[in-house]
């Protein structure tokens, strides 16, 4: 009971602190706008810990964060091997192949009006479909190892990336295109000097959406068959053994990898599209 009371008090106290910070005079500074979400996250973790202890929640339902951290620290070797198998081999390979293929297809689609009129509605349609469903088929074709995971990732990231790139390539205004024409610029020059730079915010949008999809695709594909290694494999077997602390440790890895991947792409975007209004502060 005391644990629960403590949790409630903690919640009220930190929420009050955050309210003060957010409405205070220095709320726009970098430090404060970073501190507020961090405090919120820490509050949630602390309350999780306290509630699990206070209510004696069985470990097979929800392990406390401290236990997850402990598992994470002691099982680093397994977690690292899983990470390499699923993320580096499966997700990253598929991500690079899929995004590159979609990018080249987009340039081709953009070049020919017929392809644009025909392929784009199909691409839009495909992007809304439950593509993870192709996982069992691709696992059957490419075997249990990481190649099949990379194939699932390729299929998953292809359509969002294609749609975003095509949309970006159509972003130039008539005035800009006319200017290039008065310079006597060739198609290739217009593409590299005007249209690709203008398309960059859209391309990066596609790249960012694809980071999450890549990780999801690689993990879900492992549910349909994998070597005795990999994050998806570990999650499904650990759930079977009711070793939920291991599952959560694996989720922490996935969350860290996903956020870091997203962060890296966002950082590159910042460097490439420094001229865009959304990047200027």
């Amino acid at each position: 009971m005391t644990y629960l009371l403590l949790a409630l008090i903690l919640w009220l106290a930190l929420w009050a602190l955050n309210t003060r910070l957010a409405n205070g005079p220095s709320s726009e500074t970098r430090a404060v706008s970073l501190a507020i979400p961090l405090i919120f996250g820490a509050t949630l973790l602390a309350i999780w810990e306290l509630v699990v202890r206070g209510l004696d929640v069985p470990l097979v339902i929800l392990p406390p964060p401290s236990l997850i951290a402990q598992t994470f620290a002691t099982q680093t070797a397994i977690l690292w091997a899983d990470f390499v198998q699923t993320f580096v081999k499966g997700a990253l390979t598929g991500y690079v192949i899929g995004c590159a293929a979609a990018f080249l297809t987009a340039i081709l689609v953009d070049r020919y009006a017929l392809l644009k009129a025909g392929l784009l509605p199909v691409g839009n349609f495909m992007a809304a479909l439950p593509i993870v469903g192709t996982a069992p088929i691709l696992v059957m074709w490419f075997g249990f190892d990481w190649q099949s995971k990379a194939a699932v990732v390729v299929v998953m990231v292809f359509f969002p990336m294609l749609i975003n790139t095509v949309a970006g390539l159509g972003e130039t205004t008539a005035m800009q295109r006319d200017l290039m024409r008065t310079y006597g610029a060739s198609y290739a020059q217009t593409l590299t000097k005007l249209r690709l730079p203008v398309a960059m915010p859209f391309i990066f949008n596609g790249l960012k959406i694809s980071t999450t999809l890549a990780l999801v695709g690689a993990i879900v594909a492992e549910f349909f068959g994998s070597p005795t290694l990999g994050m998806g494999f570990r999650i499904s077997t650990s759930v079977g053994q009711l070793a939920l602390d291991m599952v959560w440790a694996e989720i922490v890895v996935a969350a860290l990898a996903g956020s870091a991947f997203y962060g890296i792409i966002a950082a590159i975007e910042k460097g490439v599209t420094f001229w865009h209004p959304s990047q200027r502060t």
Partner: protein
Amino acid sequence: MRNVSPVLMVVAVLLALWYLAVPVMNIKETVTQLERGGAQVVPASAQERRGAGHFGLVAKNTFAIPATFVQDRPRLPAPHQVGAELWDGVVGKKITSKRSLVYHGSITLSATLLGFAIGAGLGILLAVGIVHSRVMDKSVMPWAIVSQTIPIIALAPMIVVVLYSAGLQGLFPKAVISAYLSFFPVVVGMVKGLRSPDAAQLDLLKTYNASTAQGFWKLRLPASMPYLFASLKIAIAAAMVGAIVGELPVQGGGLGNRMLTGSYYGQTIQIWSALFAAAILAASLVALISVIQRGTLKRMGLS
């Protein structure tokens, strides 16, 4: 009509490619089968065939091509096989039958819709909170974004198992996953939409001495509708993915379950037909929202 013909052309090309790929993908199994049946195949021994390329085998065994389209468990089923299985699953079986795609589809659909309703509802509420409260904007919004970089679908089996051991089973665990996936696009779209009225419009309401509630109901909410519908379309597609993945670890049926059992028993045609059933279902849900969107925006005079 002008917009339809290129699409039809692309679809026709894709179908043609599919048909061309079928003999290449299935040739090895087909040739082996025909050889067991006593036919003369080139090369004759299984050992030589193992190293041979797929294209070479097709070229040398042209007589086997028709047989590649009627395999029982092909590596790549032909479009008409998938179509026949789909038709049989939808029309040919009783709706209560465990082999009916309508039965499995309705399980997936109910989980999708429940999850979508929960997710969209929570998303709208959260967006209203974020727009009106600085604390929520600053503390919750970053986490809503981070939460999407976590591959939540990976959690699906665990959520289902945990909720099962907590006494909940059936529709609800799948709906939780659907809700989680569909809530984020709604939050982002709705926050954008509720903030879309410009300063002049907000100032006008201020000169009318309108309260915050009036400003919300009369200006912000109507202005957010185009954004809301755009994100609802993304959300329902995501909810469908959530429901399908949520069905993988449970035995209760559903399209995802159909795919998994198909992959266990090598029933490729079954996987493909379940996949297409899911695709058709997802596409009709998105189309349904488009229709509602058009009707609503027309009545509001926004389109």
